[in-house]
């Protein structure tokens, strides 16, 4: 910890560690020095000159963003000299900046507007002709309006330094400078949209959000993204019941600065025209529309019949329903239907990891741990595509703290650009583990290590990996990568077979199940088998998937953006969903469970997410998380490693999603489908 220095700002004495930038020191003390180009964790620019302040004994005004505090420094941030300077910088900026506020998407959220409002320059003395350049479209989601651009270079830096993609640059000179995309007239990038959100003005705007609404007409609902398992918070802008945009401008989730294309733009699947809005019942071999009452009564009756006839049930749960729904479904299956045949599409071997780590504390890493890590080993995963937040945090750890990154993967990964060791292997776990063992000398020299692994590490091989980690004699934490927004929750809430239970694959191919209940899952491939001819199949989903097409009853469900409850990220962090919109005709899975239970005369407890979460906290190992943290939008980590949990055998198979795909949710997002980028093409050519 650096020594503290004493200095004075606006007559107030304060302290900060030596070397702290004045702008940061002031921020911590509640004194705001305005800036456009200064942005935390990005390289310093001192280009906008908004942060110029007066410092005693220094003849010129100094930029607060580059000046480290010094003992005895006396600073004025609101003196007449400073106020005049700020006003003038704004007046200069407004000379070519077009008066687009009435039609500019950024209106109401614009930092330039805010600054002008606060620091004056409302009147301009500029009476010359402005220089106009037409707006350009650089990708399905990115538009660039050069006259609005204030050349703060935030977009260039976030893409280059933050994301490591370097898709934006600056060309020309002087007042004719413009941001330029890397493929001449368009962008060849991840389409994450970080550049759009970081732009302080409306120079970079979103292709999907443009001209649709004003920010104050929307309700801003912070919830958890429903795609991959990273658990990013996305703030959905909702008008009426329509989700119009997603972003994370308030940076309040575990993802902080970061959000990927799915979190920002993928929500449009909720408004896909092919979304189911009425139940379907198979009558005379065809699925026909039916009312809820009829459909639910049918399911309850048929389930009761199977139960009465001592028939067997199969229950396949979902990777993206809430913890409460998964908990309730598990209870329904085991106590209500009396079956151990419960499973879900397992995408990462969480079971084996937790078993191998039994009795250990602090052995699971959070997203934040990756951000602050000293060393990270990535095995068999293309994080940039499948876990963009984890990729971002690892890169940031390297960038800001010099973290050592090791990559053992079958193909090139973005980490190759900064990893200290990068090894290519066959796409087979044994090969990867051998490569990891070969790194033992380097790894054991680290102070600590986080191992992030994909589905190649499963079963005995995963146990071997954990054993290997032990031999390093340093603190090691793990992240078992899973594919979807609540894959961890599916496992944690017990949606896995009992010792005598059938696995998912076995349920799909069984000829003797009396009833098969598939919730939010699409395990059947086209032309594949779905249970036996006598099995009564109920599918709950948002779309008429390949699996739903073969069902006897299809019940339309709500998406995660349309209900409340909690989900658990791949790093085991629990977060609350917040309901943003609703879809006419769909019901939350929980409501469907409850109605069927009622219809069967079962008492499974209140079907209220809050009450169920209390039950979860009391009964599910590791889920006794502090409510104040949950309720205020935090993401406490669950730590279910103490005590043995059953480890059922079964296929663990990642779906190998890409940045633009995510099961049935992704395939119905028009936006994700419209992005033609070749995933990973940006770094395939690198060393």
């Amino acid at each position, binding site marked *: 910890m650096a020594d503290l220095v004493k200095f004075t700002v606006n007559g107030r004495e304060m302290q900060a560690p030596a070397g702290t930038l004045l702008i940061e020191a002031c921020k911590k003390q509640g004194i705001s020095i305005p800036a456009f180009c200064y942005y935390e964790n990005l390289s310093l620019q001192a280009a906008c000159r908004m942060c110029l302040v007066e410092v005693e004994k220094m003849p010129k005004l100094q930029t607060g963003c580059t000046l480290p505090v010094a003992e005895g420094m006396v600073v004025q941030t609101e003196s007449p000299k400073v106020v005049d300077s700020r006003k003038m910088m704004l007046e200069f900026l407004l000379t070519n900046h077009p008066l687009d506020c009435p039609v500019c998407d950024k209106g109401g959220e614009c930092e330039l507007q805010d600054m002008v409002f606060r620091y004056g320059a409302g009147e301009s003395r500029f009476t010359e002709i402005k220089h106009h350049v037409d707006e350009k479209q650089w990708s399905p989601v990115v538009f660039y309006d050069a006259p609005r651009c204030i050349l703060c270079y935030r977009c260039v830096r976030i893409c280059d330094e933050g994301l490591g993609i*370097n*898709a934006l*640059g*600056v*060309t*020309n*000179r002087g007042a004719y400078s413009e941001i*330029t*995309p*890397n*493929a*001449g007239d368009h962008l060849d990038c991840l389409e994450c949209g970080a550049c759009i959100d970081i732009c302080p003005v409306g120079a970079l705007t979103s292709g999907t959000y443009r001209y649709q609404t004003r920010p104050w007409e929307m309700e801003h609902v912070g919830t958890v993204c429903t795609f991959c398992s990273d658990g990013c918070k996305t703030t959905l802008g909702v008008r009426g019941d329509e989700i119009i945009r997603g972003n994370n401008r308030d940076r309040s989730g575990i993802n902080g600065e970061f959000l990927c294309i799915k979190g920002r733009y993928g929500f449009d699947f909720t408004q896909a025209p092919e979304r189911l809005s009425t139940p379907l019942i198979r009558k005379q071999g065809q699925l026909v529309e039916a009312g809820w009452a009829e459909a639910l009564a049918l399911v309850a009756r048929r389930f009761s019949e199977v139960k009465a006839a001592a028939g067997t049930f199969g229950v396949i749960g979902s990777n993206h329903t809430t913890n409460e729904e998964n908990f309730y479904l598990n209870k329904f299956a085991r106590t209500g239907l009396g079956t151990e045949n419960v499973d879900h599409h397992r995408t990462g071997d969480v079971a084996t990891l937790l078993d191998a780590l039994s009795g250990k504390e602090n052995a699971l890493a959070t997203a934040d741990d990756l951000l602050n890590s000293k060393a990270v080993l990535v095995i068999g995963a293309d994080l940039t595509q499948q876990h963009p937040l984890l990729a971002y945090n690892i890169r940031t750890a390297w960038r800001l703290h010099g973290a050592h990154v090791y990559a053992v993967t079958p193909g090139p990964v973005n980490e190759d650009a900064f990893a200290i060791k990068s090894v290519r292997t066959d796409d087979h776990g044994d090969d990867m583990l051998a490569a990891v063992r070969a790194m033992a000398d380097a790894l054991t020299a680290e102070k600590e290590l986080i191992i992030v692994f994909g589905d190649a590490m499963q079963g005995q091989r995963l146990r071997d990996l954990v054993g290997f980690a032990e031999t390093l004699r340093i603190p090691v934490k793990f992240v078992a990568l899973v594919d979807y927004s609540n894959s961890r929750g599916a496992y944690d809430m017990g949606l896995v077979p009992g010792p005598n239970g059938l696995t998912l694959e076995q349920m799909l191919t069984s000829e003797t199940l009396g009833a098969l209940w598939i919730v939010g899952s699409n395990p059947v491939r086209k032309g594949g088998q779905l249970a036996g001819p006598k099995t009564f199949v109920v599918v709950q989903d948002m779309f008429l998937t390949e699996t739903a097409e073969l069902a006897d009853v299809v019940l339309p469900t709500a998406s995660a953006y349309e209900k409340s409850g909690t989900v658990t990220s791949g790093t085991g962090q629990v977060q609350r969903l917040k309901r943003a919109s609703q879809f006419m005709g769909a019901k939350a899975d929980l409501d469907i469970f409850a109605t069927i239970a009622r219809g069967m005369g079962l008492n499974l407890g209140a079907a209220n997410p809050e009450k169920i979460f209390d039950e979860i906290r009391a009964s599910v190992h590791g889920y006794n998380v502090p409510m104040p943290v949950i309720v205020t939008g935090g993401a406490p980590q669950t730590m279910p490693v103490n005590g043995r949990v059953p480890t059922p055998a079964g296929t663990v198979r990642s779906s190998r999603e890409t940045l633009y795909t995510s099961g049935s949710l992704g395939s119905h997002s028009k936006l994700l489908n419209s992005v033609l980028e070749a995933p990973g093409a940006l770094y395939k050519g690198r060393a």
Partner: protein
Amino acid sequence: MTFSPKLEERFAKLVERYPEGRKRAALIPMLMYAQDEVGWISEELKVEVAQRLGISVMEVTEVVGYYSMLRKKPMGKTHVSICTNISCLLHDGDKLWEQACKKLGIGHNETTPDGKISLEEVECDGACSWAPSVRLNYDYVHNVTPAQLDQIIDDLRKG
């Protein structure tokens, strides 16, 4: 993209001049020398140079856009630079410029239809004590009178 042996030799020497791992430093001189042969910084040239120096094409574009002498389009066989900045202005450099434009029928950064001559109104060319100055590609002509300018242009037209 292939270059003349002479240019290749120059390139080879250029990249040797900078510290280990700093090949990018050769970028601007490389573009300048390549431009002499190729005529301008074409897309093909950008890609070639980017590849040789291990940088992205965008990074080359960023640089090309910044520097005035790097040509974003082809120019004439002889590029005529006429300075109109202060010391030349005081010796009627601006009138020389107007004379050249009128005589050739083209303007700033434009080329005659036969591709022989292009014009550029430049900033201080470093010939202030010998103003007004005209530069033909890289060759300086000092103390240029209107009559001399006419002669220069006539000669270029013939050549």
